[in-house]
């Protein structure tokens, strides 16, 4: 058997395809990620200045007492929608010249169960995952415990994943 596979290897050596050495495929250095840190910074500033990360604003939203959060989420979706439409229509490429590629989402019941569970936590903490990071940044250090707990929640989900209804 061993001999057989060896023969196979000799007769069919692995050929290096052109795509293997294409610049896009090359592993980028860690500092290439700094651009995402800068986008995150701008995003974090908007989060704080628009009070998206405010526990009070989230309570207002779920009590239907203010339009503020609905205006933000609604106009963000609209902007994203128009942007993606334009990116697709004009076949805009990434800065590296790659075609833009968005993975489609598939439905499973997790979106219902998980969605409800997240909704409960959202109204308790007054924060989704992004705002947790921004809240810590504004100096509310106790939210790091909430973040650690959210990481623990993710970990427990990973542990139980196979046993959960989907």
């Amino acid at each position: 058997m061993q001999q057989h596979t060896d023969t196979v290897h000799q007769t069919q050596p692995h050929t290096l395809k052109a795509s293997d050495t294409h610049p896009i495929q090359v592993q980028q250095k860690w500092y290439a990620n700094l651009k995402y840190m800068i986008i995150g910074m701008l995003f974090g500033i908007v989060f704080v200045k628009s009070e998206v990360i405010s526990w009070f604003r989230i309570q207002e939203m779920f009590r239907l007492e203010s339009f503020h959060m609905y205006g933000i989420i609604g106009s963000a979706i609209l902007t994203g929608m128009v942007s993606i439409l334009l990116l697709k229509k004009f076949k805009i490429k990434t800065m590296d010249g790659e075609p833009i590629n968005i993975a489609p989402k598939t439905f499973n019941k997790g979106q219902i169960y998980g969605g409800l569970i997240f909704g409960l936590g959202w109204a308790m903490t007054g924060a989704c995952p992004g705002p947790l990071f921004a809240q810590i940044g504004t100096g509310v250090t106790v939210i790091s415990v909430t973040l650690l707990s959210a990481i623990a929640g993710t970990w427990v989900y990973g542990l139980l994943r196979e046993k959960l209804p989907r």
Partner: protein
Amino acid sequence: MGIIESLKQPWPWYIAGPLIGLTVPMLLIVGNKSFGISSSLRHICASCLPANIPFFKYDWKKELWNLFFVLGILLGGVIAASLLSNHAPVEVSPKLAAELAGYGITDYSNLVPKDIMTWPSLLTLKGFLLMVVGGFLVGFGTRYAGGCTSGHAIMGLSNLQWPSLIATICFMIGGLLMANLILPLILIL
């Protein structure tokens, strides 16, 4: 009013919403990345404590951008609070203020209520439920749902994904239930 002075005011929704929405094309153009934040929690698990769990066995280093992105969000919080703050209390609807006063929540000097979310209150039942249990539900729920407000509500709906619509509706139902029916019971503890 100067530029810096106006930046220091709270920003209206019609400025903030489109700016948040623009993150979607920015990430796509800069590096073909789909906007989503809750995945960062998974990458932290995979990098720090994979514990041989199949869900955490993947090449998280390829997703390092996401961790840089959330680090940036944290730094954005630092910048906004230190350089762009006018230190005015958060304004909320009078109706909410009246309701919260009934629970002893009257401090609006911070974006999170100092009356219930501080280090000492972690040791109270109310604080533990809100910050620790609440955080756990956020982490567990977003991963179970496959995304959060950014990945589903903004990125998913922007790309017309109907599973994201279902997830977003469920986020809202969960939040409505908690804020109106369950949270009042927690806040009187």
